[in-house]
């Protein structure tokens, strides 16, 4: 099947925008009337629903932050009466209080519908056996993909996480063709399978993977394809927005965001002003049809760009590019936004240096100076100084092209830069601002 819902997925852009405006208008009236939280926020911002006369008037509405969800724990931001809710999910807060999301029947329907479109666009459907190896329970991954896969008529194998050897046995015995899990769990499965003497590529029917919930890269996509024989598709969504919601189509160039469900904005992290398509910034989300927990101009903290140009698959909805980091990780060098993840990606493409790096930032006079330390690869060592200077210049040039900012590179001996388990601390910022 090409499209799950062709009427909406191939709707001309102008019609989609009209639909978005209608949905936005309804949403704003609804929260103004029924949500004490949003009512108060809008009063404070001196904006009334009648002030929203076109889509771009959304700028007049105040932002909403993760902190708001914590501050109103457990259910201060939930708009629906409890008897209207059919489910709760709770995200464990790494800092402070958890956040609670309540879902009405309609919210669950739209969530599954969104994934049904996405899974179909990735070529999964009736006849597929889909192993859901995301965690089930308070976390949204497992149940989210479960409902999405059932909606399209796939056969779901709800294995959740853990007991990997049994998962691999079941994958073989029940002829699993698709899997949903984190990218790191997929790689872990590959390793465990190899130890068991099972080649996922040659001894299973697994061909597609829906992976997300943690950062991953194009290099990992290639590795998963070459090693496991599996095509990996990115999936995006956070629990506040419902859970995993959007998934890449067969062209694997970003995930379609369904315009009838979401109104995305990309915000300049410095000026907090919306950026035009193609520019990188913070994703700000308005969920157009969410009732249980309304989401209006939610600052996700995720960095991405929006692509408005038509997708070869024929779907008219815009695509968001793979997330390139978090706002919290962003560095501003000479007024340009730089993400450590960009450096990581650029270095992976340079065979002369290793993957580990450190960033040191100083301010000389009025100018920021960024020094990136990398390890010289064994194979790239030449005992001629001129060759090494050439290597260094080459790395500097590649990084400058990737970051749009001048950098100095220092070549270090292999194994000398710090290794990190868990969250890496690669930045030493010595600027006094």
């Amino acid at each position, binding site marked *: 099947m090409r499209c799950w819902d062709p009427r909406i997925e191939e709707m001309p852009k102008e019609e989609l925008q009209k639909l978005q405006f209608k949905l936005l208008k309804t949403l704003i009236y609804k929260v103004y009337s029924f949500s004490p939280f949003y009512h108060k926020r809008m009063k404070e911002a001196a904006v009334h629903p009648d002030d929203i006369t076109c889509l771009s008037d959304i700028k007049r509405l105040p932002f909403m932050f993760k902190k708001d969800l914590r501050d109103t724990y457990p259910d201060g931001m939930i708009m629906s009466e409890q008897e209207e809710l059919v489910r709760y999910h709770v995200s464990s807060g790494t800092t402070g209080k958890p956040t609670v999301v309540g879902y009405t029947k309609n919210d669950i329907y739209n969530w599954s519908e969104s994934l049904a479109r996405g899974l179909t666009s990735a070529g999964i459907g009736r006849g597929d056996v889909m192993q859901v190896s995301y965690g089930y329970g308070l976390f949204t991954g497992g149940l989210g993909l479960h409902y999405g896969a059932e909606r399209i008529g796939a056969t779901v194998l709800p294995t959740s996480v853990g007991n990997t050897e049994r998962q691999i046995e079941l994958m073989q015995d029940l002829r699993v063709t698709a899997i949903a899990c984190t990218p790191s769990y997929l790689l872990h499965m590959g390793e465990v399978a190899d130890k068991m003497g099972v080649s996922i590529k040659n001894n299973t029917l697994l061909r597609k993977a829906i992976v997300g919930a943690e950062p991953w890269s194009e290099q990992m996509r290639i590795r998963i394809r070459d090693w496991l024989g599996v095509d990996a598709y990115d999936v995006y969504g956070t629990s506040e927005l419902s859970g995993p919601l959007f998934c890449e189509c067969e062209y694997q160039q970003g995930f379609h965001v369904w315009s009838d469900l979401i109104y995305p904005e990309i915000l300049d992290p410095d000026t907090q002003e919306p950026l035009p398509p193609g520019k990188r910034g913070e994703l700000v989300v308005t969920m157009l049809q969410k009732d249980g927990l309304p989401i209006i101009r939610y600052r996700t903290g995720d960095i991405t760009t929006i692509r408005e140009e038509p997708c070869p698959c024929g779907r008219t909805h815009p695509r968001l590019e793979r997330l390139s980091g978090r706002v919290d990780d962003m560095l501003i060098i000479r007024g340009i936004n730089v993400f450590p993840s960009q450096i990581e990606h650029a270095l992976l493409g340079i065979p002369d240096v290793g993957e580990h790096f450190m960033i040191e930032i100083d301010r000389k006079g009025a100018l920021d100076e960024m020094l990136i330390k990398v390890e*010289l690869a*064994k194979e790239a*060592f*030449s*005992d*001629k*100084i001129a060759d*090494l*200077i050439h290597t*260094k210049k080459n790395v500097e040039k590649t990084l400058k092209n990737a970051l749009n900012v001048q950098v100095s590179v*220092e*070549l*270090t*001996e*292999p*194994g*000398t830069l710090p290794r990190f388990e868990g969250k890496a601390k690669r930045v030493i910022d010595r600027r006094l601002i």
Partner: protein
Amino acid sequence: MNCEQYMIRQISLFSENKPGRLAALAKACQEENVNILAFSIAEADGFGVIRVLVDKPDVAFSRLTALGFNVAFTHVIAVLMRDEPGGLFEIASKLSDAGINIDYSYAFSGKNKAILILRVDKVEEAIKLLLSHSFTLIATDSIQ
């Protein structure tokens, strides 16, 4: 003619410009009973290359690799310099007339004689040329 006997294996190390790297190298050699016959350090912007001639290159290579150094073998030639003015110029001009480039050179003094270490882009040609002009080259087996 067998040029290989004159191709001496020099050990080259990549090093950050920080104190203690040369000392670490010397200590490792001492512990392995390896004699350093000659060395030079070339420095650039933030890093350097240490080049050493030792009597047991394989022992030194494996120990230094185990210590985490970025190590490589390089073929150099060692020429006995005439102990008179213009000795170095004579060698350099012969090579340059023949279109052979010297990547780098360094000298060391042994017993009553000076020896020039050369890294050139065309090793075999350089060996043949210098021998034909009756220069004395140091054979590998006499030192390693």
